[in-house]
């Protein structure tokens, strides 16, 4: 009774369902296949009913969620592909290898569509590095892992975000997003549609590393998780580079029907999914699979998650051409099976079938209906002690790891390789890359767990709103989104409630913004068994936008003396969940409000101003509020500014709220065409006002009762040196 004896995460209902559906007792190998394929990680059995409410259709969408990557059309026969992956559990036990192989996985997803990976982004979340050496160690090694792998395969890491919060102390989150570029007529889908085609396994050989990775990712981390290091794969970026080039050449040569990344669940998952999608069957022969170590059992072979492996479906008759291309790149390839019309995955050893399961059964785990219950909201912490020294607060915020410049991180990433990166890290609110048809793609990834903790619905929608504002600020029209929902154990009804609400928040705003979701991922079990502490709800949202013309590309640095500074959007007394309140130790309360319609109008109005050429610099106003936003623009531009915030659109609020409130739907921009800009915002019914001018060596802010003056050099030091001082204090 294997279902009871080895590591098996199937529920009693799933075991019963299996016996009933098959009408027999599966053998040990068959149980293992089902276990791997039906892990939460591979099957989305808990989340599928929830995520199905996301809008997925749109003018630009060619392929939505359900394949290795989402595909959008960008005109001139070109397509962009996009996918998000996480490697949270592996990175928690082996940050270097976990982060590196995370990139390997997401790059394969892009490659599977027949497209070339052209950009990587990272969304990282760690514990408080000002207090925890463990979190510092995780951060340093995750960054090194991403750098060593991404740089080596020649795909630039162009943007991302990092958030620090104590809830990630034991469960760091490592999300990697990859964007691909290709031709519509060369698009591949991972479908084995044609009996007679051959299945090739290319790239690395199969070993015991990564055994049970998918089930590992579908459990909570326990005290003995370090023993799970065998569930982390070993990175090999050079082999990956050769696979990328070989696969793209094979695709151009037209010898492939499709292509599938081997990720979670290994061959078991990969084979059953391509057969199920193609409504076919597959015969696979174990002795044809190149192995890295002796005496591997059929189970180990079928569920191993060894890295750098891909399944290629060679068109019947094209086998030798495919083998020749692989040989040119010295990528090992083995014909391990063939496509049949049986609709069964059949595993042969020495010519005898030793396991046989229907592919639609294997690839479609029964849905689990989870219970959801609204948690009690944390009461706001007691009386808030307002700080008198507003300058000290500003310096404190600029040097806090979540806000401070991430140059220490992105300086280690080759963000320019491929010579497409036009707006580089630190220059604008999103990365912008040039495309062969004269357009540009803008990409940004965002998260904000503190707001989600207050209200997952508003929180997740606010993340999407912020990501769209970031895309808008560089002059792009938001075109598609990817979501990644990271939560604790879904058996916990409160966790599942938060997950459901977060997805609904994303879905509702996405509908208003006409923004389709082209892919995503759900990752549960982000909590540790020792302290029974789940992470805060941590959705990560990536938005992709298109810039039509080069002169629309906009950066954030203040550029010319005496240009007018415009504040867009109304500041309200909304400081709950803000960096400011976190800084002074205040928690809880209702999150900033979000008016979906106004958010869309605000973005449209800003984009209109940019397209008319009115805007010289633009920055989304989010973490740290108006004070931090303005300071960042000044620091990046190496120029001061003088503003009177009492002239900005605002509700009745105190000076500290005016500076640090994180109300939604706000931007700061600069222009020499003040009247045109204000007229445009009026036309869109969006509040906006001129608040000051660019110039000088300091940032001067007039408030209702107070005045804040801070030398630019002081702001620069706080902002640019902070991360290095925390991570490498021995460097002066």
């Amino acid at each position: 009774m294997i279902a009871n004896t080895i590591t098996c995460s199937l529920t009693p209902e799933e075991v019963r369902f299996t016996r009933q559906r098959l009408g027999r007792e599966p053998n040990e190998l068959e149980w293992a296949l089902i276990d791997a394929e039906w892990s939460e990680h591979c099957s989305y059995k808990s989340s599928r009913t929830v995520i199905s409410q996301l809008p997925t259709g749109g003018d630009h969408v060619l392929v939505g969620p359900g394949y290795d990557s989402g595909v959008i059309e960008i005109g001139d026969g070109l397509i962009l592909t996009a996918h998000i992956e996480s490697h949270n559990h592996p990175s928690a036990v082996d940050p270097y290898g976990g982060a590196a192989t995370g990139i390997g996985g997401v790059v394969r997803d892009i490659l599977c569509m027949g497209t070339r990976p052209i950009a990587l982004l990272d969304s990282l979340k760690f514990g408080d590095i000002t207090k925890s050496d463990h979190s510092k160690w995780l951060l340093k090694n995750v960054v090194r892992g991403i750098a060593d792998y991404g740089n080596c395969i020649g795909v630039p890491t162009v943007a991302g975000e990092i958030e620090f919060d104590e809830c990630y102390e034991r469960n760091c989150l490592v999300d990697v997003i990859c964007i691909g570029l290709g031709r519509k007529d060369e698009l591949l889908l991972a479908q084995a549609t044609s009996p007679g085609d051959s299945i090739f396994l290319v790239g690395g050989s199969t070993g015991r590393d990564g055994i049970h990775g998918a089930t590992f990712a579908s459990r909570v981390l326990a005290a003995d998780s370090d023993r799970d290091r065998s569930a982390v794969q070993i990175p090999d970026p050079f082999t990956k580079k050769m696979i990328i080039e070989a696969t793209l050449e094979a695709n151009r040569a037209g010898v492939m029907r499709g292509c599938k990344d081997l990720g979670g669940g290994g061959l078991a998952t990969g084979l059953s999914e391509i057969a199920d999608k193609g409504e076919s069957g597959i015969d696979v022969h174990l002795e044809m699979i190149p192995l890295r170590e002796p005496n591997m059992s059929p189970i180990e072979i079928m569920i191993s998650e060894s890295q750098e492996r891909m399944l290629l479906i060679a068109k019947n008759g094209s086998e030798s051409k495919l083998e020749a291309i692989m040989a040119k790149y010295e990528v090992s390839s083995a014909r391990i099976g063939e496509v049949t019309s049986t609709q069964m995955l059949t595993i042969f050893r020495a010519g005898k079938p030793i396991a046989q399961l229907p592919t639609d059964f294997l690839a479609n785990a029964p849905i689990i209906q989870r219970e959801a219950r609204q948690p009690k909201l944390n009461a706001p912490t007691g009386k808030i002690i307002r700080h008198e020294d507003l300058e000290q607060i500003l310096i404190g915020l600029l040097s806090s790891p979540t806000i401070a410049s991430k140059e220490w991180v992105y300086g280690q990433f080759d963000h320019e390789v491929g010579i497409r990166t036009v707006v580089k890290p630190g220059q604008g609110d999103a990365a912008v890359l040039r495309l062969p048809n004269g357009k540009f793609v803008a990409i940004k990834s965002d998260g904000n767990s503190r707001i989600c903790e207050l209200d997952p619905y508003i929180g997740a929608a606010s993340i999407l709103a912020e990501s769209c504002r970031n895309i808008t600020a560089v002059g792009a029209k938001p075109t598609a989104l990817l979501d990644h929902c990271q939560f604790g154990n879904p058996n916990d009804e409160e966790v599942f409630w938060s997950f459901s609400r977060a997805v609904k928040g994303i879905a509702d705003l996405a509908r208003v913004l006409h923004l389709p979701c082209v892919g995503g991922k759900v990752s549960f079990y982000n909590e540790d068994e020792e302290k029974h502490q789940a992470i805060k709800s941590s959705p990560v949202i990536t938005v992709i936008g298109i810039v039509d013309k080069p002169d629309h590309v906009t950066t954030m640095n203040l550029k010319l003396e005496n240009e007018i500074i415009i504040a867009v959007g109304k500041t309200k007394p909304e400081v709950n969940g803000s960096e400011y309140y976190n800084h002074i130790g205040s928690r809880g309360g209702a999150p900033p409000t979000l008016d979906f319609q106004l958010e869309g109008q605000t973005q449209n109005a800003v984009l209109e101003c940019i397209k008319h050429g009115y805007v010289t610099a633009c920055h989304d106003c989010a973490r740290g509020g108006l004070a931090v936003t303005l300071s960042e623009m000044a620091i990046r531009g190496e120029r001061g500014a003088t503003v009177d915030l009492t002239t900005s659109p605002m509700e009745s609020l105190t000076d500290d709220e005016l500076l640090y409130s994180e109300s939604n739907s706000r931007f700061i921009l600069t222009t020499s065409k003040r009247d045109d800009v204000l007229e445009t915002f009026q036309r869109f019914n969006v509040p906006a006002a001129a608040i000051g001018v660019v110039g000088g060596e300091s940032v001067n802010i007039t408030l209702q009762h107070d005045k804040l003056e801070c030398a630019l050099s002081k702001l620069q030091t706080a902002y640019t040196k902070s991360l290095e001082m925390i991570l490498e204090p021995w460097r002066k």
Partner: protein
Amino acid sequence: MKIEATLVWHNEFKSDAFDAVILPGGFSFGDHLRGGIIAAHSPAMEGVRKMAGEGRPVLGICNGFQILIESELLPGSLLRNSSLRFICKWTDLQVDNVDTAFTCAFERGETVRMPIAHNEGRFFGEEQLLNSLTADGRVVMHYLNENPTGTSQGIVSISNDDGNVVGMMSHPERASDISLGGTDGLRVFGSMLEWMR
């Protein structure tokens, strides 16, 4: 700039068909052992050696520079950056030698701006080598204002005696379009055309 260029495969390089060769950057063989060492032994290097010997322009950029050093077409060595980190950033450089195939279109002493992106780019040489490089004017460019990698005397690019073989850690191709941040790098390739005329 009209230059006809072809990508060649590492084991099928017919050097007689070309006027000049550029070894670009990019982790050849995954930087296994150390940057450039395996590529230095690839069949294509025979052709590169021949072209270098015949005075045809040979440029090594980043990993290409590492390969030229590992092939002993250029002296010295390239060590791990002193910060022990990969560094990707734009830097100011001063052009010291304009008698090479890749800098003849620059002014001596001119300041230019190009990015670097590498792990192992700290040029190192014994004192004797550094002295002779300086004396012979074979230091092609050095960092201005800062020395991000801790390289000897700020050296970022050197040449051989004849000036036809140049290695540089900077990436001129990344500074070849105003939308990418600058065009100083374009003149490296412009120099090559001028040199061949």
